[in-house]
């Protein structure tokens, strides 16, 4: 990279020290705000036997399992919603398009409370999923809803319908056209949205904490487990479990980065 920079000096970089200042200041900010606390967290993680405790393992398994289901449901539901927003025409479409962003704007604790009101013990619908694993699934589906929709939608918009017309004129049915022409084009976007949704689901706390009941071995997700360790004064054990979550988050981010490079591989 350094060699390329030397071979292609940008005129701005040569002319003024300002870009260097921007890099320096933003690196300093990032280090103090993000890296320093995370370094302290990793440094102070001890009591690794705490991660191997049955309760910790069970919460981690539950979280990863439910997040996997959340990712799969989002892959389908997100694609269908994106499709409806781009290819369909109906009254109130603009409203629905805005509604999709609601989980990004709504505080997670409010999301949990609203779901608890409609699908909890005092539900007017008679559906009560509070304190079950279904509740965790629904809460996570709520907060992760926009990810796949918002990554697939722009790709679907850019996609030329000519290819589909060509496929149809060659005798392909609607399903075959979708599977052979559209899906390969939007798959990288779906995967990158799914990865974001998965990462978000693994770390989610606010929307789950009220509705899941936080029963150890049954409905306790890993964020809630960490919170419990902090509350009972075991910061070291909490930090050890946190380092595991941190590693998963970072791995998912790297995977998304790889996905992005795969998508833009023809642009460069």
């Amino acid at each position, binding site marked *: *990279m*350094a060699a*390329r920079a030397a071979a292609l000096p940008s*005129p*701005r*970089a040569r*002319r003024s020290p300002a*870009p260097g200042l*921007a*890099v320096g200041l933003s690196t300093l*900010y*990032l280090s103090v*705000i993000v890296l*320093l606390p*995370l370094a*302290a*967290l990793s440094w*102070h993680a001890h009591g690794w036997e705490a991660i191997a405790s049955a309760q910790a393992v069970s919460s981690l398994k539950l979280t990863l399992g439910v997040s996997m289901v959340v990712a799969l449901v989002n892959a389908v539901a997100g694609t*269908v919603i994106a*499709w*409806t*927003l781009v290819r*369909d025409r109906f009254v109130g479409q603009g409203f629905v*398009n*805005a509604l*999709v962003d*609601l*989980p990004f*704007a*709504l*505080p*997670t*604790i*409010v999301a949990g*409370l*609203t779901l608890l*009101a*409609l699908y909890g013990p005092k539900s007017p619908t008679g559906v009560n999923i509070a304190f079950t694993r279904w509740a965790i699934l629904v809460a996570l589906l*709520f907060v992760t*809803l926009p990810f796949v929709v918002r990554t697939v939608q*722009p790709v679907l*918009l850019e996609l030329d319908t000519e290819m589909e017309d060509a496929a149809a004129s060659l005798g392909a049915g609607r399903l075959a056209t979708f599977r052979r022409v559209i899906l390969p084009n939007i798959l990288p976007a779906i995967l990158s949205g799914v990865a*974001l949704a998965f*990462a*978000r689901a693994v*770390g*989610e*706390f606010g929307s789950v*904490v*009220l509705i899941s009941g936080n029963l150890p071995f049954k409905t306790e997700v890993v*964020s809630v487990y*960490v*919170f419990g360790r*902090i509350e009972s004064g075991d*910061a070291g054990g*909490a930090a050890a479990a946190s380092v595991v*979550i*941190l590693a998963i*988050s970072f791995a998912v981010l790297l995977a998304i*980065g790889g996905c992005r490079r795969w998508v833009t591989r023809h642009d460069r």
Partner: protein
Amino acid sequence: MIGKYVVRFAALGYLAALLAAPLGYVFWRTFRHGLGPAWAAVTTPDAVHALKVTLILTAIAVPANTIFGILAALSIVRYRFPGAGLFNAVVDLPLALSPVVVGLALLILYGRGGWLGGHGVVFALPGMVLATIFVSLPFVVREVVPVLREIGTEQEQAAATLGASTIQTFTRVTWPAIRWATAYGVVLTTARALGEFGAVSVVSGRLAGKTESLTLYVQDRYQSFDEVGAYASAVVLALIAVTTLILMTTLKPKEETR
């Protein structure tokens, strides 16, 4: 043609059951006895104080992350430096990291026995500010980076050739191109800052009337079996969210909605 309607109603049904119905029901439930009880519940001293705390956190985190966001976006797009890949990944980290982990990291760094411990940061406002800044950090960067890539450097170079200083080039050429992206990033940052719960919950100590933000107040009311208070303050946050949503829709680049 039946297929088209099946897809449409599947999509709309999913959205209605997951988003619209629960939110609509909470609004109805809060206001079914009129505005009076709800208003009384959100004007108690603790509720008003919680709203103030939330506004203070947002008022500090948003400008800090906006300035950082523009500088970081310029660094990522316009400058090659060693470690740029890592820089990029660390900027994204708060999007993927559990807020509880963020809170714990701050607790360990600034808490008793921490590297920077003993300055009254944790269980007080400064810790809550740091937590809010952490979780709302990526949004401005993420919105500005693609626009900076898109506009390229030709106009900036032309300005520089014509003798404009770095600051003049930024204010006259770069800023007009990125201001809407920045505004959209600011709206997202604000929404995230107002709604932060997990990280703030860990570092604040949750002292009612002292270090309780509005999201913490919602939980506190719910767990004290004060449903009216919980739902009313949740509705206040939801109204802010809806306002944010309207701003987002207005500021969003138009090509996303055809």
